[in-house]
């Protein structure tokens, strides 16, 4: 939105008067700061912004934003937000959820919000653990994980949130992490600008129940070798000297190579607008977990009519076809008789 009447605001304007109560050192703080700092740049007013969350540590987020907000019930944030967005296409609606809230108890609502392409910006904080309930494994926890509820190691195969979102027909799919505010803000800005459902997975450290889950890719030293930045129109390369790259091999499989071995021209050029999600899906599965080179950035960003627009279109079409509603005429629309 480029409404010139939107007043100039600062982070302070978007910060509520409520005390933030996450554990000291939680990755949620840096995500909150990134969002609060970004809001003044997005061109929305506070009154036209709604944050909707479910239940979990991350779902406290709306209380800290000086906007409209609903802290709903476990897993249902995408459904509640769908109601807000369909009723009021004029609003900017954000969903704050986590790996338990969004992928376990609320998995159904998440995939349906994505396939419908409801105009929502969905931020999924993935810390691979249940924090609020004090440390049980989540649907993104790795096999073998020892937690309070899995003393002998988890036997659950985890979800890959990016693969899931792509499979659910999402039109915008991205990943970022809590260690890089600039990257977060760039991804959030893109997600907010996207018309339709934008899904962002944020790797977020839970320093109490799952500390260091992402250290192998997110520590300062690891990032150059283990984060694969996705940039639209650019060859997919990484490493301290961009010495690594991604190709699609003869079997049609995406894999990591030394650029020197295959030549620069062989490196896959990232196209987030590809109609077919297959290649994005392959990229989402380059790493089997956050301990191998992992792509971050926008996997997919394609256009499709949003659900809210289509609802609106049908309302307008019905009015044009049938005229504005006339209650008395409606009640008489069946067979009538006079007594």
């Amino acid at each position, binding site marked *: 939105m480029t409404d010139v009447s939107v007043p100039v605001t600062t982070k302070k304007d978007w910060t*509520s008067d*409520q005390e933030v109560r996450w554990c000291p050192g939680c990755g949620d703080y840096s995500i909150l700061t990134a969002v609060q700092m970004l809001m003044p740049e997005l061109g929305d*007013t*506070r*009154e*036209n*912004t*709604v*944050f*909707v969350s479910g*239940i979990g540590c991350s779902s406290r987020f*709306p*209380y800290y*934003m*000086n*906007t*409209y*907000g*609903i*802290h*709903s*019930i476990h897993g*249902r944030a995408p*459904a*509640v*937000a*769908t*109601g*807000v*967005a*369909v*009723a*009021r296409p*004029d*609003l900017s609606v954000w969903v704050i959820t986590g790996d338990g809230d969004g992928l376990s108890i609320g998995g*159904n*609502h998440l995939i*349906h919000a994505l396939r419908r392409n409801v105009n929502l910006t969905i931020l999924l904080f993935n810390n691979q653990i249940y924090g609020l309930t004090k440390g049980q494994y989540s649907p993104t926890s790795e096999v073998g994980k020892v937690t309070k509820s899995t003393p002998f190691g988890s036997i659950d195969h985890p979800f890959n949130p990016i693969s899931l979102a792509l499979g659910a027909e999402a039109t915008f799919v991205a990943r970022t992490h809590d260690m890089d505010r600039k990257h977060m803000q760039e991804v959030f800005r893109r997600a907010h600008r996207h018309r339709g459902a934008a899904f962002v997975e944020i790797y977020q450290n839970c320093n109490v129940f799952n500390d260091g889950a992402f250290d192998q890719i997110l520590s300062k030293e690891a990032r150059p070798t283990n984060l694969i930045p996705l940039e639209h129109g650019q060859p997919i390369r990484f490493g301290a000297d961009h010495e690594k790259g991604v190709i699609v091999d003869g079997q049609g499989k995406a894999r990591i190579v030394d650029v020197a071995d295959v030549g620069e021209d062989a490196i896959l050029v990232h196209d987030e607008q590809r109609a077919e999600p297959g290649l994005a899906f392959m990229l989402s599965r380059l790493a089997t977990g956050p301990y191998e080179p992992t792509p971050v950035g926008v996997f997919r960003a394609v256009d499709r009519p949003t659900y809210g627009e289509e*609802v609106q279109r*049908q*309302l307008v*079409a*019905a*009015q044009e*076809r*049938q*005229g*504005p*509603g006339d*209650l*008395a005429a*409606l*009640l*008489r629309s*069946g*067979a*009538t*008789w*006079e*007594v």
Partner: protein
Amino acid sequence: MTDIAAPGHQSTELDRVVIRFAGDSGDGMQLTGDRFTSASAVFGNDLSTLPDYPAEIRAPAGTLAGVSAFQVHISDHDILTPGDSPSVLVAMNPAALKANLHDLLPGGTLIVNSDAFEERNLTKAGYAENPLGDGSLKAFTVYEVPMTSLTVEATKPTGAKPRDAERSKNFFALGVISWMYTRPTEPTLEWIQSKFGNNQTVAEANTLAFKAGYNFGETAELFESNYQVKPAALEPGLYTQISGNVAVAYGLIAAGQLSKLPVFLGSYPITPASDILHELSRHKNFGVRTLQAEDEIAGVSSAIGAAFAGHLAVTTTSGPGIDLKSEAIGLAVSLELPLLIIDIQRGGPSTGLPTKTEQADLLLALFGRHGEAPVPIVAAKTPAHCFEATIEAARIALKYRTPVFLLSDGYLANGAEPWKLPDVATLPDIAVPFADGPNHDRGDGTREFWPYLRDPETLARPWAIPGTPGLEHRIGGLEKADGTGNISYDPANHEHMVRLRQAKVDGIADDIAPVELDDPDGPGGAPVLVVGWGSTYGTIAAAVRRVRARGLKVAQAHLIHLQPFPPNLEDILGRYDKVLVPEMNLGQLAFVLRGRYLTNAQSINKVQGLPFKAAEIESAIVQLLESNP
């Protein structure tokens, strides 16, 4: 076709008749009954209907499980029920005969499709002998009509193959009955054209079959008489025929207009509530938004989101859906947002009897949430009353910022009756204002917005919708501090809020109509009071009439508001030593009345997926009258 009975036929006047059409679920009996009903409505009879069909889309043809029936009661005076027992049964096959014969009144008229009474069908229905030939139907006047072959013959000009042609046999049956009860034929012929107009072969076949049936009645020497049921002397006005589910849909559209709010329905398909979603989806020109959600939980959750955003939000379902929505309904109690939850009750528990009626969700609506989570409840009493009850439920939801249950059931949902159309100008204004500015002084001369600062009279909190500058606020399911709405774990505040939420709902009692007492001798005059709620209204009223016709005294009160109860209920109950509560459950209202008012309420219960018969309640009343105190 002439309007006059053919020579040799006499025409007999009846004050009422109850007809049941029964056949295989593929035979189109619901359609046949519905058309007969429409023609009778337009003719001016009072009427009441009871569709009864299997849950299976198409159970094996010819079996008892696959029998579908439609009962209609037409009369020349006001009636209250679809009739206890039919005096006319149309049976399209042996299974339909077997499943319904026990209800036919002795001496009643039985019209059978004799073509269907061949060995295979008889075996499927479990008949060792053909009942048409073994004398077992002696108690009835039986007309054997070879409907299938006559239909195939009549529809030959269309060129339809016999297999397709025989599908029109329900229209043949409709024609026979239309002749027999001197129904006007035009409404049905017009309807066939409008319904099947895009398939001329089918339209023509149905028209020919209908006419052939009508003419068969007129010319065959089979029937001694046809019958006339004159128009009823109903209150003057413009009437239409309405089912409960359509009345709910119209009520929602009306509530949207009367509150000047867009209607938002979040719903998941479920029998017997889906027709409300279907009907509302057709009226988008009223600004109605319908979202067919991914599940029941999303249906109510999206409605909560729409309510927050300033819409008249609704979710429609049946019992299993309420189970799933319970947590979200608790959220709506905590958020204090207007929300309509419409439960079209069906037989339970679990999947239960999806297509059959029951009223066993009362305690679920009252208490089916964790914590102290009071929700007002409104219950409709007749199909047409669903319209008014929906507007009343919306009024309470909007004014008090609370979820409200509207209870209907399968019998009301699919049953139909004539409805005197209200003058829309006389419908209530149920609009409420949105909050438009800060409501609390900080004490330093500046003002701020407190989302849980209540209206002192209604105890409703302000409804501040997104888009309103300066009123940004966050609400959620966590306990809130009184006034500010900020998260609070303070023990005293929690108890205070629990009591406030209860007081808000209790206070609605002062804002609802008192329960009407029907006692010709004045309050306390009769020895027995019958108290009911929901769809039993018509049957109870019919039973009360019968008891009074015997010269006995009985009083009736029927509850529309079940939470809170009308304030005069306690006084009324106190005036009667004997209180009888008929319910299609195991005594849920009686349980509440006994608990709340220490009333000696006695139950009569029926849980068969079918409404009471007036005779059943009549005999329970008489029994109670005769019992020692």
